């Protein structure tokens, strides 16, 4: 498999090889950037649902704080997405 990839890479001009490498790194960068925020948002929303179930009269307050937390947590994933766009297309 790697020999085939090597042969295919040898026949491509340098610019294409560079863009293929950049695309691979872009995918890796975005994939890594999703891991932490994925765990974080899952934990955050899970705990919020538990809080709302235990104390339904505090649901409004919990929901506001939950959205704030989601906004802070997903910022890292979104920066990863921007890095993906920069690596892939710029």
């Amino acid at each position, binding site marked *: 498999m790697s020999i085939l990839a090597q042969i295919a890479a040898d026949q491509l001009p340098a610019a294409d090889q560079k863009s293929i490498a950049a695309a691979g790194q872009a995918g890796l960068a975005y994939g890594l950037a999703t891991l932490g925020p994925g765990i974080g948002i899952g934990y955050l929303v899970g705990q919020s649902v538990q809080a709302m179930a235990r104390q339904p009269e505090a649901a409004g307050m919990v929901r506001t704080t939950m959205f704030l937390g989601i*906004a802070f947590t*997903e910022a890292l994933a979104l*920066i990863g997405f921007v890095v993906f*766009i920069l690596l892939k297309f710029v």
Partner: protein
Amino acid sequence: MIFGLEFPPIENLVEWPNLFGPKDSWYGFNKIALINVIALVATTVIFLLARRSKGLVPHGVRNLVESSVAFIRDGIINETIGPDGLRYLPFLVSLFFFILITNLFEVIPFFHMPGNARMAGPAVLALITWLFFICAGLKAQGPKYFWSAVAPPGVPWPLLFVVVPIEFLSTFIVRPFSLAVRLFANMLAGHILLVTFTVLCITLFSATLLIIVLPFSFAMLVALTGFEIMVAFLQAYIFTILAAVYIGSSIHAEH
């Protein structure tokens, strides 16, 4: 070319030719500028129309305006700033409506382009919010705002050498940057998602056996359009609530 799918380059998705004026000139006017102007005019017109309607019982556009103002007052300001934040209501309401309308152009036919999917729009909005919360802090606390913003109380003095640079970075540099990037990346991701499924539908619309998959792809496209309407509301809400939190943290010194 991925698996026979001809995906357009990203420039075709987000860069628009100027309606008039040469490329890269300061007075060039393209689709994004048109969307921003429409959002500005629509926000103004909605509130002027609501102001004109008389009577005790709200109806029509006044209903929309009154309920959204009450939502921002009760759901955003009272929960984050407190009662003394009510004087920032006009700024937050206009921010919310402007972002919401520019975002909704993502699903409006013949536009299909969120105005905030170019970095310039969110960056300007974040800069305005940044200036606004600094000025609100200066007005509420005077020049000692800059010290109270970077030095949390109760920290032993040797630690201040570490805490102050970190707090300075997170308050004055990361805040506007993350505010802008959050809105921009969400709208761009939604736009690319919709384009991907549209391109898939167009490719599958052929005389081969692949047409069996087309209904699933199209159903996904419709579902994602509904999802993107929700994202447009959610991002406007999150931008407004974060602006309110930042204003609240700068007018109330931590103690």
